[in-house]
C-alpha cells in the first residue's frame, strides 16, 4: 500500500510538472463553458432586413417601423428596386427582404386585401425559416391592428410551454456535452500518452523488472488522472451553477457517482490504447481520430443523432460518451433519479467490463 502511494506521488509529479498541458486541461473546459454559455445561442436578434418599398404610403411606413422596433430585426436599407436584393444577399448585408408592391396601402385600405412578398436568403436554411416565421408573425400582428378590434371568426390560438429551458439557451444542451468531452480527453488521451511515453523512453522496462506488481504500475498511472478528472467535473459544475445559472437539478451525489463510473470506462479505454500502440504519435492519432472525433460527432450534443442516416445511428450506440451524455442530461437538466438512468448505467458498466477484460488480456509484462 505504501509502495502504491509512492508511485501515485511520482505520477502526480509528472502530471503537475507539465504546466502548459495542465493549463490547457483546465483552461479548455472553462473557455468552452464560457463560449457555449454566452456566445452560442440559437436565438435570432438584429437580423438585417432589406425593405423594397415601392408603395411609399402610410401602411408600408408603419409596417417598416414595427419591424425595426422588434428585437429580431434591424432594417438595414430601404430601397425601391428589387435588383438590390441579390446584391445585398451576396455581400451579406441582408438576410431577408420584404417587398411592398406599388399601391400596397391603397389596396389594403379599400379592398381590405393586399399582397406582400418575402424573399429569404436560404443559403442558411434554418435561419431563413426562423426569420420568415418571425416576419410573418409581425405582419399578422399588424393585420390584427388594422382590423380595429374586429376579431376574425374561428380564431385558434396556441399557448406554448417550453419545458426545461424556457429561453431556448444553448447551455443546458452543451454543459453535459462539454463534461463528456473533457473526461474523454483527460482520461483516454492523457492516460494512453502517459503510458506509451514510458514505453517509448524505455522507463517502462525498469518499472516492469522492479518488485512492484505490473498491475499496480498501471493502477498508479491512472489514479492521478481519475483525481484530475473529478476535479475537472467539479470545476465545470461550479461554473455552470454560478456563472451560467444552469444548476444540477437532480442529485449531485448521483451525478458524481455516474461520472466516476464513466471515468473508469474512459481509463480502461486509455489503457487499451496504450497496450496496442508503441509511439506517442500513434497513441495521439488513435485517441484523436478514433475517440475524440466520434465523441464530438456521435454523443448527440453537437449533432442531432436522429437526423443521421441509419448506419451512423447504429455506430453511435457503440460510443460510451453518448450514454454518459444521456445520463448527465437526465440528472442535471431534468432532475430525474436513478431509475431513469438504469438502462444507460447498465450499458456503460457492460462496456467497462469488456474493456477491462480485453486490456488485461492484451497487457504484456514483457516488452517484446
Amino acid at each position: 500500500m505504501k509502495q502504491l502511494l509512492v508511485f501515485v506521488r511520482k505520477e502526480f509529479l509528472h502530471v503537475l510538472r507539465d504546466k502548459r498541458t495542465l493549463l490547457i486541461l483546465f483552461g479548455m473546459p472553462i473557455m468552452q463553458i464560457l463560449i457555449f454559455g454566452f456566445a452560442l445561442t440559437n436565438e435570432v436578434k438584429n437580423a438585417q432586413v432589406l425593405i423594397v418599398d415601392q408603395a411609399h404610403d402610410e401602411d408600408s411606413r408603419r409596417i417598416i417601423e414595427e419591424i425595426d422596433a422588434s428585437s429580431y430585426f434591424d432594417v438595414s436599407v430601404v430601397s425601391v428596386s428589387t435588383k438590390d436584393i441579390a446584391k445585398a444577399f451576396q455581400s451579406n448585408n441582408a438576410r431577408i427582404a420584404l417587398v411592398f408592391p406599388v399601391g400596397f396601402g391603397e389596396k389594403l385600405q379599400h379592398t381590405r386585401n393586399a399582397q406582400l412578398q418575402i424573399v429569404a436568403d436560404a443559403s442558411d436554411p434554418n435561419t431563413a425559416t426562423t426569420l420568415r416565421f418571425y416576419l410573418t408573425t409581425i405582419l399578422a400582428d399588424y393585420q390584427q391592428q388594422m382590423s380595429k378590434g374586429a376579431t376574425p371568426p374561428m380564431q385558434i390560438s396556441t399557448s406554448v410551454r417550453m419545458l426545461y429551458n424556457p429561453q431556448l439557451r444553448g447551455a443546458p444542451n452543451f454543459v453535459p456535452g462539454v463534461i463528456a468531452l473533457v473526461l474523454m480527453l483527460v482520461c483516454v488521451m492523457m492516460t494512453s500518452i502517459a503510458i506509451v511515453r514510458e514505453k517509448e523512453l524505455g522507463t517502462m522496462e525498469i518499472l516492469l523488472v522492479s518488485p512492484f506488481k505490473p498491475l499496480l504500475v498501471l493502477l498508479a498511472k491512472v489514479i492521478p488522472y481519475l483525481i484530475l478528472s473529478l476535479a475537472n467535473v467539479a470545476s465545470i459544475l461550479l461554473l455552470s451553477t454560478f456563472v451560467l445559472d444552469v444548476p444540477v437539478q437532480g442529485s449531485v451525489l448521483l451525478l458524481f457517482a455516474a461520472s466516476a463510473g464513466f471515468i473508469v470506462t474512459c481509463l480502461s479505454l486509455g489503457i487499451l490504447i496504450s497496450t496496442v500502440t508503441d509511439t506517442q504519435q500513434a497513441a495521439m492519432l488513435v485517441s484523436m481520430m478514433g475517440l475524440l472525433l466520434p465523441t464530438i460527432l456521435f454523443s448527440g450534443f453537437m449533432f442531432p443523432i436522429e437526423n443521421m442516416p441509419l448506419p451512423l445511428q447504429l455506430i453511435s450506440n457503440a460510443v460510451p460518451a453518448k450514454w454518459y451524455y444521456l445520463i448527465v442530461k437526465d440528472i442535471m437538466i431534468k432532475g430525474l433519479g436513478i431509475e431513469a438512468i438504469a438502462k444507460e448505467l447498465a450499458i456503460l458498466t457492460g462496456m467497462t467490463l469488456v474493456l477491462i477484460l480485453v486490456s488485461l488480456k492484451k497487457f504484456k509484462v514483457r516488452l517484446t
Partner: protein
Amino acid sequence: MRILLFLLQKEFKQIFRNRVILGMILVLPIIQLLVLPQAANYEVRNIALSIVDNDRTEASRRLVQKITASGYFKLDGYEDSYEHAQARIETDEVDIVLEIPQGFDRNLVRTNTATLLLAVNAINGTKAGLGTSYLSSIILEYNSGIRAQWATPPKFSDVAVVDIQTSNWFNPNMKYDMFMVPGILALLVTMVVTYLTALNIVKEKEVGTIEQINVTPIKKYQFILGKLIPFWILGLVVLTIGLLVSRLVYGIVPVGNIALIYLFVGVYLLCVLGLGLLISTFADTQQQAMFVAFFFMMIFIMLGGLFTSIDGMPDWAETVTRANPVRYFIDVMRMIVIKGSGFSDIRNHLLIVGGIAVVLNTWAIVNYRKTT
C-alpha cells in the same frame, strides 16, 4: 535561392516519405467530407410529436392529419392524458406534445375562439424553436382553411387580409448539405494545415535536428520559407480535393468564380501557416503543440459561425469573432459557392485576413530564435 530550393526538396521528400502525413492530407479530408455533412445535419425533420386529443371530433382529427402530412413531424402516438405524454418527454422519446382541449370544436363554433396547448422539450433550443415555428404555421394554415370553409364572411368586413408570398433564394429546396459542405471544407483546410505546420517544426525540435540546421549558414527566413511553402501548396491540394468531393458526391458546383476562391485561400493559408509557426515557437514537445493547436482550433471553430450563426451572438462575442480568420474563410466559401458573390463583396474579408496573416507571421518570426 539555391539554398531555399534544397530546403524545399528536403521537406517534400520528408512529407512524401511519411505515410501518416500523406494519409492525413489525402484520405482524411475525403472521409470527413463524406461523414461530417451526414452527421452535422441540423435540418429539423422527424420531430417526434405526441398528441393528447381530449376532443375527439372530426375537426381535431383533421388537424392531426394536416400536421402529420407536413413531413416535419413523426407521430409518436396518442396519449390519454397530458401526464402520460409528459412522461414520454422525460424519456426523450417525444419532442413536442400537442394537447387539444375538450370542446375544441364546439368552442370554435360557439365562442369563435379555442386554444391549443403545446408543450415543448426545449433542451435542444434549435429543435424546439424551429419545431414550434413549423407547428404554429401549420395551425395557422389549418385555421384559415376552416375559416374559408365554415365561416361565411360578411359582405364588408373590417378584417384586413395581407397575402404573403415567400421565395427562398440560392437554395430553394432548403438543402442543408449546400450550407454545411463549404463550411466543413473550410474547416478541414484550416485544421490539416495548422496541425501539419505546428507538428512538423516541433518534431525537428524534439528530435534535435533543428540544432543541426541552426549551426548551418542557412538564414532564418530561408528556413521558415522552406517550411511554409510546402504546406502552402499542400493546403491548396486539400482544397482542390475537397472541391472535387463536394462536386462529385454532393453535386455542389460553385456559383461564383473558382479563381476567386483560390485567390482568397492563397492569402488565407498564409494566415494559417503563421498560426502553426507561432504555436511551434511556443511548444517544446509534439504533445504540447497538439494540445495548444487543439485548444485554438476548438475556439476558432466554435466562434466561426459554422454551426450557430454569428448574428445571434452577443455584441462582445461578435467583436471577438472579427479577429477569427476561420470566420472569414467560412463566410467567403459560403458566399462564393452558394451565392456567387464577386470580388467587391469579399474585398473586406480579403484585406482583414491579409492583415491577420501579417501580424501572426511577424510575431512568429520575432519569436523564433536560432539559438536556444
